């Protein structure tokens, strides 16, 4: 075998894995790898402006394409800057392979320049990580890393490569290891038991999550068929939006803290709950002891540790959710199973829907943020846009008022709740889908957390649209202070905001400001008509709050529907919950 340097082996291994795009930022400890990339123009490198941007861009790329996102950063600050994105991908189960440079092996532990204990720092926020000390290990490590990142419950895998390992040459290659054997098919007896429970249910519900998106497009198809066969209503977590079409008649909307009244009431009142690829997160369950008290719960998850983690379930099925649904469909059909009469259940749901919980007060003088999202949806839905978000009120309004009919169109930071996710994620999504309309629905506070990535979009001519709902507040913080701390707005005002239009122009973008409800449609049309990146500064009502809302420590039945139901105080138990 011909001798190759560690850097060459790495780049060849990435190409062998089918990698097309790498998001990264060079630095001292990865110079040999960057030199190898120079020789391989087939592997496109996207130069970000901050390593956090690289990790989020890779997440956006992964979420929108279904392929793993690849990140390349240098040692020390390069790696630590990427940590938020790694932790984000870990909580949202996004497949990433993150390659970090490290100081030479003989310098490790000596507090060398730009040295950080990357494997130590990322150990508990990655699915797995490696410190590669021998170039002969590189090829098998890369192969195992991609397998770990993409199969089973996806997640980020970090490969830390000391600089001397990148430079050293070898003709040897260690044997490939396979320590990864994720579950795929469900146990036959479990599936039949699940069908038995579902077919007898008088008030069933399908509670779906991001696992369906991760399982692939076939899982979303299977979900549609399963809902049709069982006749059960469907709700979804924030991460699962798009797996089931929002235009379908069985769709209840999102559930949880800012979910719809009908979804949360149905979760509370159901008799059989089939949880598909979701994990009973605290944002979904509300108060644990009051969560869906009378239901038999079935939980399908690929990760055994998700089952019985927070909510005890009656039947846990460890399997790939798409495969398990397909098994259910096959058995349901072959046994000619019939559902129980669900007409009473549906009439109760109709009653909850009649509450019209997403209604909001009209405002003639200023733009209600909900209206802005509604118009954005109406004017873009035919283009099937990919929507990314930052974190906060705008994110929840987008989840409530933008509707998705397909998977991989909704990219948001759910688990970690990372402000600054949206713009780099949009850049990554656009890299993977050059012809798609990609819009980041942002807030004026979040957008500033990774605002530097505007330069990346300019450099690679990525026509991303940033739609800022600008209310001059960290809106969700202000909302909680209003609800919990009697309106003592401690540090939640976004003072000294930039002129977003001038900022856009300085980066070579188009900048648009929308100030009046009457100008909304024209402003959105102008954004869509421009063939390049656009930043829209949409000035919205400053004091609007996001409802419905289940306050922390409350149950699904204690939703606040309007701001006039808010008392402004909370006991310590509730205050202690995030």
């Amino acid at each position, binding site marked *: 075998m011909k001798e190759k340097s560690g850097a060459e082996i790495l780049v060849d291994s990435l190409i062998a894995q089918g990698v097309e795009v790498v998001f990264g930022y060079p630095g001292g400890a990865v110079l040999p790898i960057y030199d190898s990339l120079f020789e391989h123009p087939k592997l496109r490198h996207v130069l970000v402006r901050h390593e956090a941007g690289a990790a989020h861009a890779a997440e956006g790329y992964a979420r929108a394409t279904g392929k793993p996102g690849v990140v390349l950063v240098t040692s020390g600050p390069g790696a630590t800057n990427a940590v938020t994105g790694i932790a984000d991908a870990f909580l949202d189960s996004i497949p990433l392979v993150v390659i970090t440079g490290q100081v030479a092996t003989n310098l490790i532990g000596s507090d060398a320049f730009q040295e950080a204990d990357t494997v130590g720092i990322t*150990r508990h926020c990655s699915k797995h990580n490696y410190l590669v000390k021998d170039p002969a290990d590189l090829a098998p490590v890369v192969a195992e890393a991609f397998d770990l990142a993409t199969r089973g419950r996806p997640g980020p895998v970090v490969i830390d490569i000391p600089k001397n390992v990148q430079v050293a040459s070898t003709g040897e290659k260690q044997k490939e290891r396979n*320590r990864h054997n994720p579950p795929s098919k469900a146990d036959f007896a479990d599936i039949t038991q699940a069908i038995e429970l579902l077919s007898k249910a008088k008030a069933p519900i399908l509670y779906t999550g991001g696992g369906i998106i991760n399982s692939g497009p076939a899982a979303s198809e299977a979900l549609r068929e399963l809902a049709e066969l069982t006749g059960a209503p469907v709700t979804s977590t924030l991460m699962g939006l798009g797996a089931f079409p929002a235009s379908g008649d069985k769709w209840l909307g999102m559930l949880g803290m800012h979910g719809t009244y009908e979804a949360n009431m149905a979760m509370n009142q159901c008799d059989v709950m089939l949880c598909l690829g979701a994990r009973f997160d605290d944002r979904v369950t509300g108060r644990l002891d009051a969560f869906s008290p009378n239901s038999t719960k079935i939980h399908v998850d690929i990760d055994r*540790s998700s089952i019985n983690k927070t909510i005890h379930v009656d039947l846990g099925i460890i399997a790939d959710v798409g495969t398990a649904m397909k098994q259910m469909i096959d058995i349901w059909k072959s046994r000619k199973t019939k559902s129980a009469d669900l007409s009473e259940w549906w009439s109760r749901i109709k009653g909850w829907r009649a509450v019209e919980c997403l209604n909001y007060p009209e405002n003639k003088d200023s733009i209600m943020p909900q209206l802005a999202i509604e118009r954005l949806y109406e004017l873009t839905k035919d283009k099937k846009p990919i929507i990314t978000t930052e974190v906060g009120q705008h994110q929840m309004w987008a989840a409530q008022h933008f509707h998705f009919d397909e998977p991989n169109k909704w990219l948001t930071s759910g688990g970690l709740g990372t402000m600054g996710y949206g713009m780099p994620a949009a850049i990554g999504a656009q890299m993977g889908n050059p012809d798609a309309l990609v819009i980041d629905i942002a807030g004026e506070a979040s957008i500033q957390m990774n605002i530097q990535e505007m330069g990346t979009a300019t450099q690679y001519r990525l026509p991303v649209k940033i739609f800022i709902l600008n209310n001059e507040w960290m809106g969700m913080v202000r909302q909680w202070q209003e609800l919990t701390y009697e309106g003592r707005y401690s540090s939640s005002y976004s003072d000294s905001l930039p002129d977003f239009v001038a900022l856009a122009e300085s980066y070579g973008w188009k900048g648009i400001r929308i100030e009046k409800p009457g100008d909304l449609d024209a402003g959105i049309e102008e954004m869509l008509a421009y063939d390049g990146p656009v930043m829209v500064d949409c000035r919205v009502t400053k004091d609007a709050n996001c409802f419905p809302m289940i306050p922390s420590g409350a149950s699904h039945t204690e939703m606040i529907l309007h701001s006039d139901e808010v008392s402004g105080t909370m006991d310590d138990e509730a205050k202690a919950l995030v």
Partner: protein
Amino acid sequence: MQIKQEKSERHVLTLMVDNEAGTLARVAGMFTSRGYNIDSLTVADINEDHSTSRITIVTNGPPPVIDQIIAQCERLVPVHKVTDLTDAGPHVERELALVKVAGKGDNRIEAIRLADIYRARVIDATTGSFVFEITGSPAKIDTFVALMREVGLVEVARTGVAGLMRGSDQS
């Protein structure tokens, strides 16, 4: 506001893991990062080719937490197998302790007499001290150490529990 405490059970877990850098940190760190308890932990490589280690962890928590601990251990890539000896049935647990006692006269005589009863061996002796080696269940060692406290205990080193299933099967 009060922070609630739940009733705990003691469980002995054994993990078969890859013997490579970072595995122990991964396992031990997972316990810390998720707020689980480690009462004792032992680790040593057990294969002829040094490829595999056995980790024995004594932990405690309410039953759902123990179940989570096992599931979280199984998620770690270098962990191949997790066995809950406490749940799996009849098993043996042993721990070794070195116990240093210093004293003269009656205390010294009492120490050696108790050591004999507890089948502790003398592995070092001076005119003013003994080091005893004692093997047994953690409870037996606890009792022995408590007795030694009264006759001049200086210090104790304990290995933590090592355990295996009874019978012919591998755990």
